[in-house]
């Protein structure tokens, strides 16, 4: 299948005490939903952190949108702000409320749509049957609700690439279907220009929307390809 790549990586190396991520070649096809599959400890979060700019201490080259290096991406607002990321760990300050997160998003992203954010919060049932509550503290939210809040913030922006670290893991089955539907809509609405790259350790969670799969083990890519080709 012919495709353009939205992200291309070469000779990516990152070392920890007992682990080494070593990827000679890596690419994410544009306009598709790509799943990064691997067990816990395979290196998925490490790779996603490198791609999203959360961590910049690695060796190798990454090219975004066929044009921009890591440094160029970090310094170019149009490119940087067109990439959305959600991840585990310390994403928001625990003391932030939903209202604070909304205000901060408006301050740091020109393309953040407040109305769309609130609409997404409702669609993802962030507050259950209750109305939007800006005073709700991030630290009071369950893991699943925190993930929904992260997803609402990135989907409320006009982006071209979404990098999502284990988005389905903390969600209940009903919300996983909603998430899959949202990802499907995001890609379809992009007319070939919207790409989603997500990690998962359980393929079944997001199999229905996965077009391309990259399988990782012990810091290396062991298999990759379009799902239909891999199945064959």
């Amino acid at each position, binding site marked *: 299948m012919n495709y353009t790549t939205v992200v291309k990586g070469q000779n990516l190396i990152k070392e920890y005490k007992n682990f080494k991520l070593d990827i000679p070649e890596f690419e994410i096809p544009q306009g598709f939903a790509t799943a990064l599959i691997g067990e816990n400890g395979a290196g998925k979060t490490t790779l996603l952190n490198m791609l999203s700019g959360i961590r*910049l201490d690695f060796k190798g080259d990454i090219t975004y949108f066929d044009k921009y290096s890591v440094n160029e991406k970090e310094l*170019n607002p149009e490119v940087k702000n067109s990439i959305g990321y959600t991840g585990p760990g310390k994403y*928001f300050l625990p003391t932030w409320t939903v209202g604070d997160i909304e205000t901060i998003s408006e301050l740091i992203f020109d393309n953040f749509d407040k109305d769309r954010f609130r609409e997404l919060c409702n669609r993802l049932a962030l507050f259950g049957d209750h109305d939007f509550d800006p005073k709700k503290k991030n630290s009071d939210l369950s893991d699943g609700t925190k993930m929904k809040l992260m997803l609402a913030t990135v989907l409320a922006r006009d982006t071209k690439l979404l990098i999502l670290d284990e988005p389905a893991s903390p969600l209940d089955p009903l919300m996983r279907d909603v998430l899959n539907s949202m990802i499907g809509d995001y890609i379809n609405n992009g007319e070939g220009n919207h790409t989603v790259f997500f990690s998962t350790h359980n393929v079944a969670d997001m199999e229905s929307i996965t077009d391309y799969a990259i399988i990782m083990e012990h810091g290396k890519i062991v298999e990759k390809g379009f799902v239909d080709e891999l199945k064959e």
Partner: protein
Amino acid sequence: MIKIHKAVVGSRYFNITNVLVPLVFVIIGTIYRFFIGGVYPEIFVFIQAWLMIYEISTEYFGYGAIYRKNNFGMEYLKTSINGMDLVKKSMLSDSILRIIRTIAYTLLPGILVSRSVDDPAVIVVFALALANVSVWSVSFTRFVTMYGFLVMISSPFLIVGLIIDVLCINKFINAMPVIIALILLLAGGVIFTQIFASKKIKESYKDLM
């Protein structure tokens, strides 16, 4: 910048530490000065110690232990080109607000009722010593997760601040040169805090072993 700072630390923390509590301190201090008059120096030093502990403690509820290894957090801000600049501006605002509020609730009650502890210069020393403790301690308290350790790790600043207060009250040293020294130290504290914060922000992009 205030809007940015309020967004980063949270509106509740901002309103309590920069508006509500200072207002309460000013009102209590003014009422006390108006009805009772000057404050015995020994009691004022005791109040100063309490205020220093209060100022040190506020950091526990603000940024928290963001300087601990791999604990900076706020990764959401890293996904934007100006997210971390927001943090730097917020921290600068924090330093400046600490200076303004500590000087306000130390000096205002005396100014409002035109009474002071004998020598007005000593009150200025108190205000500047408190401001210095508040500004300098954050570069250490932002490493600490447990409240008890937070006060313990900041105790050297507290002790030095109180020693300066006691020496000035008892006129063992002249207040004027101390005021100049404390102003310079305060400026140094703000600059140090910003440089240290920038260093920690840069480090947060690495996985520290």
